[in-house]
């Protein structure tokens, strides 16, 4: 019996989650096609963190790679979850916005350039509070402007997940890819527990957190598009598949009527069971497709 036959499949996977943001971004682009823009040697750091005795990073936790995916021009923008929980500060936000704007400019000039956001973020960097919130509004505006010309992808792999204002931004993407380990939600469990009490949300209940925010649930209920295995080649392949599909006819964040009706139909007297919600929204979506 060969060695490969006795080694389980999951052992042979190349975990994407275990990669840092730079290696994640590199793994998704065509080999040899990319170069990093405003990289660590440019040393554009947060001016606000040192004022608070917090060590900045030379890339501010945001990595921008310009290159190609499946031979097509692309920019990958990755947030490093290990630096300040991937939070959005002035510099990381400006990097993301500038890259999106340049992709939009190239796309308008006939060189369609897609953007892939790798989001591991708690949202606003509270040490840069109002600038963090402002850059998220700007990222959203730039995503929407690019989305008119080229698809914008969000990949959420974990383990930080995608929360706060950046979850709103994620929902503006053309496609969202998530692993089972990833989470997507506006308010993190700790924030809800603090604001609305432990009876509203027990942030120590991990099963509950993943039942609500987890990748399987978000894809299952139709608010994210693909559930991917934590394996770099698998994620790269899924991305290429979506890229072939191109821009969706209608973006999810334009489907106001559909979701307004779904919310109107919810029984709000008690908490909503995530699994029942998934089943009912999925059923509607499938029926809608077959019509």
């Amino acid at each position, binding site marked *: 019996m060969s060695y490969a036959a006795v080694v389980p499949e999951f052992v042979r996977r190349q975990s994407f989650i275990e990669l840092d943001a730079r290696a994640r971004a590199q793994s998704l682009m065509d080999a040899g096609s990319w170069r990093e823009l405003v990289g660590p040697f440019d040393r554009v750091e947060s001016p606000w963190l040192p004022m608070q005795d917090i060590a900045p990073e030379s890339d501010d936790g945001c990595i921008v790679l310009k290159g190609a995916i499946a031979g097509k021009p692309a920019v990958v923008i990755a947030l490093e979850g290990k630096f300040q929980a991937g939070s959005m500060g002035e510099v990381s936000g*400006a990097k993301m916005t500038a890259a999106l704007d340049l992709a939009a400019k190239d796309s308008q000039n006939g060189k369609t350039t897609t953007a892939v956001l790798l989001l591991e973020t708690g949202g606003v960097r509270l040490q840069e*509070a109002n600038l963090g919130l402002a850059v998220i509004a700007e990222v959203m505006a730039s995503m929407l402007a690019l989305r008119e010309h080229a698809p914008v992808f969000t990949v959420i792999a974990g383990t930080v997940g995608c929360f706060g204002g950046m979850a709103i931004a994620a929902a503006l993407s053309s496609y969202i890819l998530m692993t089972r380990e990833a989470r997507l*939600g506006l308010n993190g469990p700790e924030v809800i527990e603090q604001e609305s009490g432990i009876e509203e949300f027990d942030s120590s209940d991990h099963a509950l957190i993943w039942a609500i925010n987890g990748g399987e649930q978000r894809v299952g209920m139709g608010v994210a598009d693909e559930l991917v295995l934590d394996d770099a080649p698998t994620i790269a392949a899924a991305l290429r598949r979506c890229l072939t599909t191109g821009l969706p006819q209608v973006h999810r964040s334009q489907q106001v009527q559909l979701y307004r009706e779904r*919310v109107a139909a919810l029984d709000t007297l008690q908490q909503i069971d995530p699994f029942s919600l998934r089943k009912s929204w999925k059923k509607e979506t499938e029926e809608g497709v077959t019509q």
Partner: protein
Amino acid sequence: MSTQIGLRGKAWFQAFTGKNSPMAGDPGSLLTADAQLGEDMARFLCVVPNPGARFPCARRGEVGLEESYTLATRVREAIEQDKNGKKRPIVAIVDLKSQAYGRREETAAIFLACATAADAYATARMKGHPVIALVMGNAISGGFLTHGYQANRILAFDDADVVIHAMHREAAARITLRTVADLERLGHEIAPMSYDIRDYAKLGLLYKLLHVESPEKPSPQEIRTVQGELVAAVADARVGPADLRNRLESTAAREMRKASILVRTKLEAEWLEK
């Protein structure tokens, strides 16, 4: 904070539009009306507290699921009605608590609800509607991202009850492992952390600060003055670009957002290199 959330919003919505109730079919928490503003018919929108709301965590002026989808519906309705004609100004009156912090909301994907409203506002802006945010109370976090932050021009009242911020004091202190007193002190030294609207103005994101003597009960003279300011902002938005670049080009931004400007300059230069 001395003033009650929504009190100002309601008073000014009524002052601008003569109305104080939602449009047919809308929840009690969202006021929308079209009213004369200078030579335009403008659409005014305001999120207000609704103690009888279906969602228990969205009764005190929070932007929740119903508020977001209704905002998106009403903004998109204006875009659709004006698609072949003059683009009406859209005025977001901002006096809200925050986004809704509830489990029901998370389960039903409130992040998507917020995105539909932000998308609608940004779409209106990109299609040539002057979108104006008038902040007269709290504009906090996801609530502001959903209702107001996609505007081409942001105006705010200049007083202590106006707070634009990423998170209210107590929560921000807990999450950054500081005391509220520390946070207040840091706010005075570090402008983006401040809870003071005058420090916010230093960031260069605001079009104008407006001084209003009696923001809870505006006099006819004050209403006319603020309307005049809105008309001027609308005119300015109509001649400017439909994106948000003005937020980086203001005199204040050139001072306070040097790092942002540096990033943009460098990234553009490196983007073009072969």
